């Protein structure tokens, strides 16, 4: 590691100056207030939930590929209430569907992208010793953890977990079994966790920047986390309120979301009535559309870091990327009703939300274009993080482009709520965001552990995943164009018009199961490299941003001497410089 030349005025509470008592095991690794430990806790919990959510989907894919067929071995283990004789019940299928979505979004991707990478990397990248509010940070993780446990426990209550989709549309969700109550309580914990985290990120990024680290010297990743934190802070409270209202509808006899005159199975439902089911949708999507950007922005940030590092040149159009990002953040609050085009929308509302939807595509196009153009003129190193990062670009591109016909509400009529939508957002989040997250794991693993992950295993993981992801999701576009609805227990087998494309269900399913096999090298690599990976110094990728000034792994308090920023984040291959990178932290 290189010596920062200028003598930085030490901050008053710099870690190594104030001796702190040695922490016991519980305070050091479990109830830690250190952002790095919390980041790793978030990341590992998030990865476990991703694996769990993926497993739920693999079970669903069995039923979709072979509707009504008994699942060998595993099917019987799941019990008579779920899979009698190994054959799946529609109730269980709906549980799996609702919980797959909920877990992947709220317990997998966001905790890993924001809680994991945000916590671990942001303080290091801005040269801080920790987050601004370490105890709030710990509270955020444990609130998330409780939310996760509540969600998992909901599978065990009578009637099983929530069955109303991750969107929990009313009245279906209000009139559902106990699992839905658990879902709502779980969501309240998760939202609380995100709010605590968001406040912490905003404060940390503004207040704890290293000397000289102006906003336009931020690594793009810090910018993405900054904007993401605002999205979480401003979009989640309406859903928290909505979750409490739905809970009241379920347990306290209110009717926020229940209209009068509901008749279920011939029986008049005894509720007060007078509510509106569409109110829930507005409150839900007011969060859930910004949430889409919460899912994608940190991924974009990771990809930007890795592309700059491995092309050995600055990002092209850094400023326009930052401005686009901020604009994207603002716009993401006024597009939500494009999820509701088929609820009976008049021309004025539809025109407004279509227009904002088209407008929001432009900053995404600018960012993606800048990242692609950044490749031009580089000296590209194809290590595993870079492979995942460059694959993100076309995969996210497919996801973004296919949003276009869905955003034009006339084109959306036949495509709405079909497999086309499933394919669209999975391209954004699965080979999009999740590839970016894998890239980030391979990239910052040496910072967290002092060792690199194995490259050969990494490449097997990458190429296998790339092929399988496309085998899983590409057929879904064709099924959607053919008109097959999503969330069908038999994958569309009941419908005559779906028959010509039904075989694609089998293709997708085998793609998914093979995808699982290609995650084994990753899981093995992850644990093996912790102990046996190639040892590295503080800056194994010859990177420029401030996290690489810290030793690997960074000690409590992160930096031996408070770092300063002397230049922009990506000064690679500067003409006339002695080496091909000029770190931000070197004078």
């Amino acid at each position: 590691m290189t010596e920062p030349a200028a003598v930085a005025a030490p901050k008053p509470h710099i870690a190594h100056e104030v001796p702190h008592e040695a922490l016991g095991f519980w305070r050091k690794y479990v109830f830690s207030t250190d952002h790095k430990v919390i980041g790793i806790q978030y990341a590992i919990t998030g990865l476990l939930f991703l694996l769990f959510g993926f497993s739920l989907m693999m079970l669903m894919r069995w039923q979709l590929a072979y509707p009504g067929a008994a699942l060998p071995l595993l099917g019987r283990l799941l019990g008579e209430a779920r899979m009698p004789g190994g054959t799946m019940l529609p109730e269980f299928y709906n549980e799996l569907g609702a919980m797959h979505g909920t877990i992947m979004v709220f317990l997998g991707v966001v905790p890993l992208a924001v809680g994991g990478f945000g916590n671990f990397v942001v303080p290091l990248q801005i040269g801080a010793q920790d987050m601004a509010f370490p105890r709030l940070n710990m509270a955020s993780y444990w609130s998330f953890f409780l939310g996760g446990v509540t969600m998992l426990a909901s599978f065990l209550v009578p009637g099983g977990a929530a069955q109303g989709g991750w969107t929990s549309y009313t009245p279906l969700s209000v009139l559902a079994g106990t699992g839905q109550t658990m879902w709502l309580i779980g969501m309240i914990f998760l939202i609380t966790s995100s709010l605590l985290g968001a406040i912490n990120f905003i404060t940390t990024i503004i207040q704890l920047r290293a000397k000289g680290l102006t906003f336009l010297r931020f690594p793009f990743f810090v910018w993405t986390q900054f904007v993401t934190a605002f999205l979480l802070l401003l979009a989640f409270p309406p859903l928290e309120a909505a979750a409490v209202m739905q809970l009241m509808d379920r347990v306290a006899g209110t009717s926020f979301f229940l209209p009068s005159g509901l008749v279920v199975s011939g029986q008049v439902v005894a509720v007060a009535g007078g509510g509106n089911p569409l109110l829930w949708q507005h409150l839900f999507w007011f969060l859930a559309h910004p949430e889409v950007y919460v899912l994608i922005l940190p991924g974009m940030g990771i990809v930007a870091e890795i592309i700059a590092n491995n092309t050995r040149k600055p990002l092209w159009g850094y400023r326009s990327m930052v401005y686009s990002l901020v604009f994207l953040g603002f716009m993401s609050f006024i597009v939500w009703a494009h999820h509701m085009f088929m609820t009976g929308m008049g021309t004025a509302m539809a025109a407004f939300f279509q227009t904002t939807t088209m407008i929001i595509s432009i900053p995404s196009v600018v960012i993606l274009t800048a990242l692609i153009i950044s490749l031009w003129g580089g000296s590209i190193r194809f290590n595993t993080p870079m492979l995942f990062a460059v694959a993100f670009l076309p995969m996210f591109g497919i996801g973004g482009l296919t949003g276009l016909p869905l955003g034009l509400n006339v084109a959306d009529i036949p495509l709405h709520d079909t497999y086309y939508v499933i394919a669209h957002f999975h391209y954004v989040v699965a080979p999009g965001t999740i590839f970016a997250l894998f890239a980030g794991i391979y990239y910052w693993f040496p910072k967290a552990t002092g060792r690199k992950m194995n490259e050969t295993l990494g490449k097997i993981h990458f190429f296998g995943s790339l092929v399988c992801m496309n085998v899983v999701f590409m057929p879904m576009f064709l099924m959607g164009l053919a008109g097959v609805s999503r969330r069908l227990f038999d994958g569309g087998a009941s419908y005559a018009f779906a028959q010509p494309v039904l075989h694609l269900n089998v293709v997708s399913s085998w793609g998914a199961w093979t995808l699982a096999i290609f995650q084994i090298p990753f899981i093995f690599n992850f644990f093996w490299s912790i102990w046996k990976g190639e040892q590295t110094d503080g800056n194994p990728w010859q990177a420029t941003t401030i996290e690489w000034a810290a030793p690997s792994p960074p000690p409590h308090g992160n930096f031996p001497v408070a770092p300063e920023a002397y230049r922009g984040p990506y000064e690679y291959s500067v003409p006339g410089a002695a080496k091909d990178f000029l770190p931000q932290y070197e004078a």
Partner: protein
Amino acid sequence: MTEWLGLPALASAHGGQIDSLIGWTHVFMLILFVGWGGFFAYALIRFRGSRHPVANYTGVKSNTSKYSEIGVAVVEAILLFAFSIPIWAARVDHVPPESEALVVQVTGEQFAWNVHYAGPDRKFGRTDIKLIDLQSNPLGLDRSDPAAKDDVTTLNQLYLPVNKPIIVRLRSKDMIHSFGVPEFRVKQDAVPGLTIPIWFVPNVTTAEMRIRTGNPEFQYEIACAQLCGLGHYRMRGFVTVQTAEEFQKWMDAEEEKLKGESDVFK
């Protein structure tokens, strides 16, 4: 030009516009993907480390990307203002007068579609949730209301005359359902507490579609498109499109049945 997309056979007057918009949008997407993808792939190969050991600090100097971004914005604006917004306005604002159309009430419930015709008096009879009986009167139709005497109801069977504007008043008894008929390019959520009208003109009879598709068992299907419970996947109805004469004959037969039933009650 939209056959390559694999959309279902088309059988409504307005559907062609929707198909063209989907088609042109996909052409535009394909152009962008090939353009970006080509540049991307070329850059990866051309600037790999072994071939290009020293990176260029500045990279691309031209402003071409700015023009492509402006191009994207312009095409999106055209798709939006020239096509999507006006076509949508035609769907929701320019509903034909009820005197020129056939008005049908379709009410979703777990997991079936109740179809309700006003009959020759063109007036829908009163319904009341207190009268609902799952087997004999799923809509709670009050047969003592004079307007209800000639009302025809069916379960999961929607009969329509060809080439006549159809107004479907969509309602739901319990959950949110979605009335989707792929061949008509029609989809609309049925939201409990609301009555939402949609309209379309079916222009191919079931009989003719059987010839066109070469499938003697072809039937238009109503596919529920919104998760509504454990039976969502089998919430399937059928649409039979007939010539005006055939439709009238069917309607007359239903009226006869009704008369027979009311005679029994007398």
